[in-house]
């Protein structure tokens, strides 16, 4: 198979980027999309050119590293998969394929197709956890969790943090990501004690990072490789509303209350 690739090249965060066109031939239909890029890079290296920087690691759709917008869709034309799980047999021989990075203010470009997604980590650090010390946990079966409940929590927890939801959103909003994280813990009894603080802290962190707001267009769900439902966004909104109404502010130092656990 043969393709014409239009790839976004950008040397650094503050440099101007632009498209460069690369013809590739000898592409086997058994190749994955990233293997096709590997082959291009091998050629570029031998020719003394700078290979195309792109992120990848597990190459089996779970680590969330790969992050390409292919022909205008994050993770490309297949649904429910990451870029690394996309195979060339999916494309028409001779096609021109446009490859861009995730684009969002909160995801500055590092090089070419590699972006900085630490904003998602900072949202998690703001509250995406259950404050429980190692050791001393009660027997796991002490806590009964209905199958339905556990499965729904698992649906939310399956988020791989790739950021495709942000890339697809017209407003570059991280709502689906935050919704998945908040819902996962809010649905489980272990997560209940901190739910008010958690949702407020995470939503505020998201706003601080410069992500846009949710426009309820559901592009995020349509590109999510784990097909996480936008119903979790509704759940996040509900959690937020609940927290806004119940956050009493009686304890103004609630954010530093962990101090006593030293």
């Amino acid at each position, binding site marked *: 198979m043969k393709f014409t690739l239009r790839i976004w090249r950008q040397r*650094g965060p503050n440099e101007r980027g632009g498209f460069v066109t690369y013809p590739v031939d000898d592409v*086997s*239909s*058994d190749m*994955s999309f990233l*293997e096709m890029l590997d*082959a291009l*890079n091998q050629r570029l290296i*031998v020719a*003394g050119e*700078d*290979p195309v*920087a792109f992120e*990848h*690691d*597990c*190459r*089996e759709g*779970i*680590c*969330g*590293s790969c992050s390409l917008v292919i022909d205008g869709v994050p993770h490309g034309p297949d649904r429910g998969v990451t870029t690394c*799980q996309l*195979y060339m047999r999916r494309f028409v021989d001779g096609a021109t394929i446009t490859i861009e990075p995730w684009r969002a203010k909160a995801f500055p470009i*590092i*090089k070419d197709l*590699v972006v*900085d*997604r*630490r904003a*998602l*980590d900072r949202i998690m*650090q*703001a*509250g*995406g*956890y*259950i*404050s*429980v010390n*190692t*050791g001393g*946990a*009660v027997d*796991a*079966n002490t*806590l*009964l*969790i209905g*199958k339905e409940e*556990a499965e729904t*929590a*698992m649906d939310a*927890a*399956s988020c791989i*943090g790739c950021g495709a939801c942000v890339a697809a959103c017209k407003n570059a909003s991280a709502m689906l990501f935050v919704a998945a994280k908040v819902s*996962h813990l809010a649905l*489980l009894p*272990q997560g209940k004690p901190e739910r008010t603080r958690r949702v407020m802290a995470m939503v505020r962190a998201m706003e601080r990072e410069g992500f846009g707001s949710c426009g309820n267009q559901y592009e995020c769900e349509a590109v999510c490789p784990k097909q996480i439902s936008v119903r979790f966004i509704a759940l996040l909104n509900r959690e937020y509303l609940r927290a806004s109404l119940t956050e009493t502010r009686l304890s103004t130092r609630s954010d530093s209350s*962990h101090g006593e656990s030293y």
Partner: protein
Amino acid sequence: MGSHVITLDPQVPPGPLEMKWDRRRFSGHLVSPANKRRIKIIVVGTGLAGASAASTLGQLGYQVECFCFHDSPRRAHSIAAQGGINAAKNYQDDGDSVARLFYDTIKGGDFRSREANVYRLAQISTQIIDQCVALGVPFAREYGGQLANRSFGGVQVSRTFYCRGQTGQQLLLGAYSALCWQIERGQVTMRPRTEMLDVIVVDGHARGIVVRDLVTGRLSAHTAHAVVLATGGYSNVYYLSTNASGCNVTATYRAWKQGAAFANPSFTQIHPTAIPPVGVHQAKLTLMSESLRNDGRLWVPVSPSDRRPPNEIPPSERDYFLERRYPRFGNLVPRDVASRAVKAICDEGRGVGPGGQGVYLDFSDVIRQQGIDVVRERYGNLFEMYERITGENAYEVPMRIYPAPHYTMGGLWVDYNLMSTIPGLFVIGEANFADHGANRLGASSLMQGLADGYFILPYTIGHYLATVHSPPIPEDHRASRAALERVEVRLKKLVQAKGRQRTAASFHRALGKILWDYCGMSRCAAGLRRALEAIPSLREEFWRDVVVPGSGEAFNQELEYAGRVADFLEFAELMCHDALHREESCGAHFREEYQTEEGEPRRDDEQFAYVAAWEYREGETPVLHKEPLNFEFVQPTARSYQ
């Protein structure tokens, strides 16, 4: 370098097996809370072991600096583990116990692991599940709300806890969330996109590391009171493996060069059920969960010349080779046994698919008996993945599978306290050699990573820190400068090597082929000697011909990769030395010279019941040290699954 003499003292506490860990915890000195705040610990790697260790150390009050080469600590390769995590909870009341998990693990490891370590692992396994549930890991549940279990990987009890096919991801997200909490509290400083390139050793103690900032290319030295390596395994030395593309040996290998002994480097696990490779473009092998063998049957045509499509071959002309050879366990034999059987079949020329590399994994019987919906419910996502990759529908035609390098039991030698032969350098998770002997059972790696990180290291490192006098050292200490210089020289050499324009990947592929052929699923002295000749010359070619574009002072993925390949090219030799010296077959290490007439491995407990720990000597062959394995509590038996 090698300034201290290596002594292998396993530091196993005396007394009955069940009491050893309790005794160690009691006898260990404690660090006072006030002092903890002044103690800095470096943790390298954020997989299950690294993230759980860093978060727990932070919670205890130490100042932790944590490094990973990913953009986020959540992406480490633990995330890809599918199957589950073992624990001796005996929730199913099917006869499980700590003793049984201990025995299964030590037998599964073919009696090449340390009893005390394995017993401790089995003891701690139950606490891990409690801890993970408390952190919000959404394990599968029964309708009544209790935890669900499945049986997994060649054992006869149901002790595996799981989260669909994403157990590794959920456990890692649990550890990562704990880490996030400690980052938020200011106890852990997280440094993503940094790669560790050397260890700083001062007066024989590990006191820091040299890292490269992968975005700017800047090198820097970081000092601390102790260093923890949780940098994973080295299956990628084979080029094609089920590991993530970033997995590498660099951290542990550089530590080896600074004096940490490397134990059993040739013990590498080849997983039987991966999708067969199809061409040179292949960048990785995709694992199909071991659970598929619960229902799928492995077979090949009886006749090598049979080229009919699988569905046209009548049952009488099929060879269900695992069921034939191992009637008691059938398709559920442990990984090493299954992999070897598949390889033997393919070597006979009876393999199927491109290049004869593959055997059928057939679900037609279970589909007929239980219906397609049952199969779809159990394995739907795996079948989908298989179709996406191969373009074949496994509900209609049998899957083709072939073994793939998956896990490395070998790693840096550690004592019972998880400390390497460099005092102050602790090694946890897949990076150490400890608990799996010569073969790891399914669903045990997650257990070990979390046991090390949450429950063992935080205790044992405290004892070290409480008993050692380590004066503060400045970041520009002589030893730091020396380490920085070593790294700098090497990087410069890589960037400047611009010879006959061969890429690092092409060398890596060539190295992988040598190892796969001679130090893979089966080994022989002649082949290993051939490999030991081929590897140095390939390495020489590499340094002469490799081309690394760009500079070291910028984001440069090819430079990162070339550096890792350079280390693999040295490390591979160590693997072959180890495989050559071990003149027996045990676990995943199968020496063709040492087998029974039926082709089963022949272990030699008289001569080889020891851990082979190798010491680095500059410009010389590595020196072997032996830690004898004394089996006080179990009697090594022939590991038969027939």
